[in-house]
């Protein structure tokens, strides 16, 4: 902060003029740098309505480094001229001067000098006139003094290289409503002493700057993915869904594929699509009678199905893998359910799955799958659509439509599309279907029970919600912590 002496000097100057004064003039009058006056103006503003200051900017011509040099030492051509004695100077010697090259050609075209190429001992330069007038220097000196207004535009143009515009921000200072030429010190904060003594009544308080940001609280920040996950969990819980235990990333092909009636030659079971485990390579324990029923329905059919009619191999089912979907967990849960007296269930899970996919801005080899499953007698395709409608309404998505699709373990299968108001088109938001009888009946679920299910990824809605374009900024160690610090709470329905 500027000292009170300076502040009061400024105030006295302001007092003298009606209608205000420019901070640059104040600087000139007080003989201090303009920036010091700018500081003083800010200090005075902080004192309340002592002055009012309006920022304005004005353009000035200023000299460049070269321009300043010319203003002081003369133009290049003048320096060349002055360097030549009456008996002339060898050209090569002249060219060695700092101004040599530019000055020589300029002086030549001004006809101040001449070159005698035939001179013995090499080309020599002679003066042709007695004295010269260095107009370039004169003009630049005008600019330097701030009197560039005296120059014509044409002249300014000629000197373009040697000067430049300079924008100066200054203040137009006028008296404020509580103008005074003396400075009273303002209190910054109310203290216990002031309250006790009542001295606050006489004090002036420095106004707060309500434009400034507050102090950031010392707090933790949750990752956006976790925030969105919490919201989805909340929605499922509100709808009466029970969370499935999904803490088994390593799964056998049996539960991941075979139990879902996904044939062993299915492309998803390829090395290109799935990560297999080399250690422990094989699962060693299966419910034996259920396994036999799965084998039969694949290889021969049954339960009203033709089956896939191929040679089902236990070796293929034993292969361990990183689960490719949480539906493997749903299969385990439904099998477990089938081993007891049937009661209707609604299950959900949100957890990691792994796929050997081509990595790009929106795909990683692992992501979170959100899955909902309902098992009850007599569920219809209309029920599945109804429940999807409720689920997505809670996400703030109300316009839905359904496209027939194919999935090895659901029939019917439907892709869920929602109308995107921004893109003005229908975009896929999830997948759904009714589990096939070939999956449910071998588990031992009663004949009339239908199981409807749907799934979507957690990353996609999170990226849309938080405007993230590259999944690597969201997931993995390349996450941008600033984004984590700054991202707001997640409200999916707004």
């Amino acid at each position, binding site marked *: 902060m500027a000292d009170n002496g300076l502040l009061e000097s400024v105030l006295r100057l302001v007092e003298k003029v009606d209608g205000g004064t420019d901070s640059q003039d104040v600087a000139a009058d007080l003989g201090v740098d303009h920036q010091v006056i700018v500081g003083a103006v800010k200090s005075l503003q902080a004192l309340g309505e002592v002055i009012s200051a309006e920022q304005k900017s004005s353009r000035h011509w200023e000299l460049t480094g070269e321009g300043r040099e010319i203003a002081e030492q003369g133009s290049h051509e003048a320096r060349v001229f002055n360097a030549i004695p009456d008996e002339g100077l060898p050209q090569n010697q002249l060219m060695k001067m700092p101004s040599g090259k530019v000055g020589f050609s300029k002086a030549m075209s001004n006809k101040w000098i001449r070159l005698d190429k035939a001179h013995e001992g090499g080309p020599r330069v002679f003066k042709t006139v007695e004295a010269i007038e260095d107009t370039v220097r004169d003009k630049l000196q005008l600019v330097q003094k701030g009197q560039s207004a005296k120059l014509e535009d044409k002249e300014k143009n000629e000197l373009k290289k040697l000067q430049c515009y300079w924008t100066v921000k200054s203040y137009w200072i006028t008296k404020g409503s509580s103008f005074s030429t003396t400075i009273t010190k303002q209190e910054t904060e109310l203290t216990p002493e002031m309250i006790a003594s009542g001295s606050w009544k006489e004090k002036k308080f420095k106004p707060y700057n309500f434009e400034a940001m507050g102090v950031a609280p010392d707090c*933790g920040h949750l990752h956006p993915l976790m925030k969105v996950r919490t919201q989805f*969990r909340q929605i*499922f819980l509100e*709808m*009466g*869904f*029970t*969370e499935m*235990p*999904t*803490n*088994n990333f*390593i799964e056998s092909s049996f539960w991941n594929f075979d139990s879902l009636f996904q044939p062993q*030659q299915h*492309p998803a079971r390829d090395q290109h699509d799935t*990560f*297999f*485990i080399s250690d*422990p390579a094989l*699962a060693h*324990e*299966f419910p034996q009678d259920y396994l036999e029923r799965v084998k039969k329905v694949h290889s021969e059919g049954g339960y*009203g199905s033709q*089956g*896939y009619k*191929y040679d089902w191999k236990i070796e293929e089912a034993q292969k*361990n893998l*990183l689960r490719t979907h949480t539906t493997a967990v749903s299969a385990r849960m439904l099998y477990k359910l089938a081993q007891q007296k049937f009661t*209707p269930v*609604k299950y959900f899970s949100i957890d*990691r799955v792994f796929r*050997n996919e081509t990595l790009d801005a929106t795909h990683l080899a692992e992501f979170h799958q959100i899955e909902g499953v*309902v098992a009850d007698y*007599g*569920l*219809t*395709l*209309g*029920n599945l*659509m*109804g*429940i999807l*409608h*409720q689920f997505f309404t809670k996400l703030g998505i109300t316009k839905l*439509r*359904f*496209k*027939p*699709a*194919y999935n*090895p373990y659901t*029939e*019917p299968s439907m892709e869920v599309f929602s109308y995107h108001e921004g893109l003005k088109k229908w975009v896929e938001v999830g997948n759904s279907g009714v589990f096939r*009888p*070939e999956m449910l009946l071998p588990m031992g679920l009663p004949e009339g029970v*239908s199981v409807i299910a749907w799934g979507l990824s957690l990353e996609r809605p999170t990226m849309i919600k938080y405007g993230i374009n590259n999944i690597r900024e969201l997931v993995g*160690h390349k*996450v941008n*912590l*600033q984004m984590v610090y700054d991202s707001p709470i997640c409200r999916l329905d707004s």
Partner: protein
Amino acid sequence: MPTVSVKRDLLFEALGQKYTDEEFDELCFEFGLELDEITSEKEILIREQGGEKAEGASDVVLYKIDVPANRYDLLCLEGLVRGLQVFKEKLEAPRYKRVSPADGGEPQRLVITEETASVRPHAVAAVLRNITFTQERYESFIELQEKLHQNICRKRTLVAIGTHDLDTISGPFTYTAKPPGEIRFKPLSQSREYTAAELMSLYKTDSHLRHYLHIIENEPLYPIIYDSNGIVLSMPPIINGDHSKISLNTKNIFIECTATDLTKAKITLDMVVTMFSVYCDEPFTVEEAEVVYPDGRLSVYPELAYRTETLSGDFINKRVGINESAESIAQLLTRMCLRSEVSGEGDLIQVEIPPTRADVIHACDIMEDAAIAYGFNNIVRSTPRTYTVANQCSEEDIADKLRKNITETRAVHISNPKTADFQVARTSLLPGLLKTIAANRKMPLPLKLFEISDVVLKDETKDVGARNNRRLCAVYYNKSPGFEVIHGLLDRVMQLLDVKPGRNQGYHIQAAEDSTFFPGRCAEIFSCGKSIGHLGVLHPDVISRFELTMPCSAIDIDIEPFL
């Protein structure tokens, strides 16, 4: 999902109607297809190889249509048009018929020898008589085989198709297997004869064929088909012979499919003949061929089997959630190429599944087709009355998880990792947090990060031999190590979990050695007398290995005992 590329104008001509892109997109959506892209050969070339290469390429509009992976009957223009025309009730689904050779002639015969058993034991065959190709039909015929090869044939591993100009060869044909050195013929688009061994090395650099070599490469015998004069028809699943190659002028086609999966071979053959018999003089008829197995069994192909399923209108109504009469359901199904009739007994419907619809294997598939024809988006959306009480996940079997010393556990290894960074499933959360700090070094200090997540450990007691373990890991990264900060975090976490400080029932820490931590700055954490993890100041070597420069303290604990 396979993508079929068709010329738009050709498609509309065949459909007998012009659509706008939007209208056609809508029709696709309703039918379960997806109009993926509208483009042209020129556009594709420009995108893939730059403008110069595209000079003079065709700018005929192409529709790229995504077809469900189980609908092999929609993989070519002919099939798509047939499916859509029947769906729009502009055409009745044709009946495909297997016929004997005209004039009482002998059917073509393919004899399988026992040598094939070890490499590719199955084969089926059929004949298309008096077919008329045009340039477009011919291209579509080739393209369909390629699409089938990529999909149902699983890149020729399960089935390989060979098509031959029957007038250039004479049966009976022999499907056998021979050592590669003994096979010698002129393959398609080559100018001279090669031995099979030479061909395998020739095709090593062929961008298309090299992907199929592995199927037989290491077999002692290669599959091979000869005609009665010893002319090679094909060496499945790699290449056909040049002698019998088909052309625009071919009238009679001999089709063979060799396979490791007989069911898929039959379906593949049915697809090829049902799709292209439309261009035979007598449309939708296919001439039979006999296949003789090594044991003398004789089968006649193509099967072109029609199967009838009986189901009730009530079943469809109840599963879909609609209320339609049996008659109208039969009509819906007929629109999906499943010719259906009300049987007269109650609301029973007789549904005939044609050979083109191998995807229909259960009543639920029929139910789906009824729903598609009804229109998914016409179905009333209703809430199921399923009463349930929600529960959050609590892991019940905590006791048996409390057991083993963490340090004894071994990592689970991935056999086909994507990158060197992902060869094992993680056993600790710490490296992830340290890498995150390394990637965020520009952020103001201190950096305080935590993660609560699963790691994977080997565990013999589990059916798959591994289990997840829920961990909490936190790091404090600043100019001073901040052990007290991390220690304070432990105290706070324990306070929230209602575990009191103490040696027996509570938690305590005691000095320990761990190579991750700086000597003398590491403690083991015990809860109820059992070790649950460590906390301490990280070893400078660890800090530098993660390209970090500041001191760092960390805590890493198993939180399953508290769940």
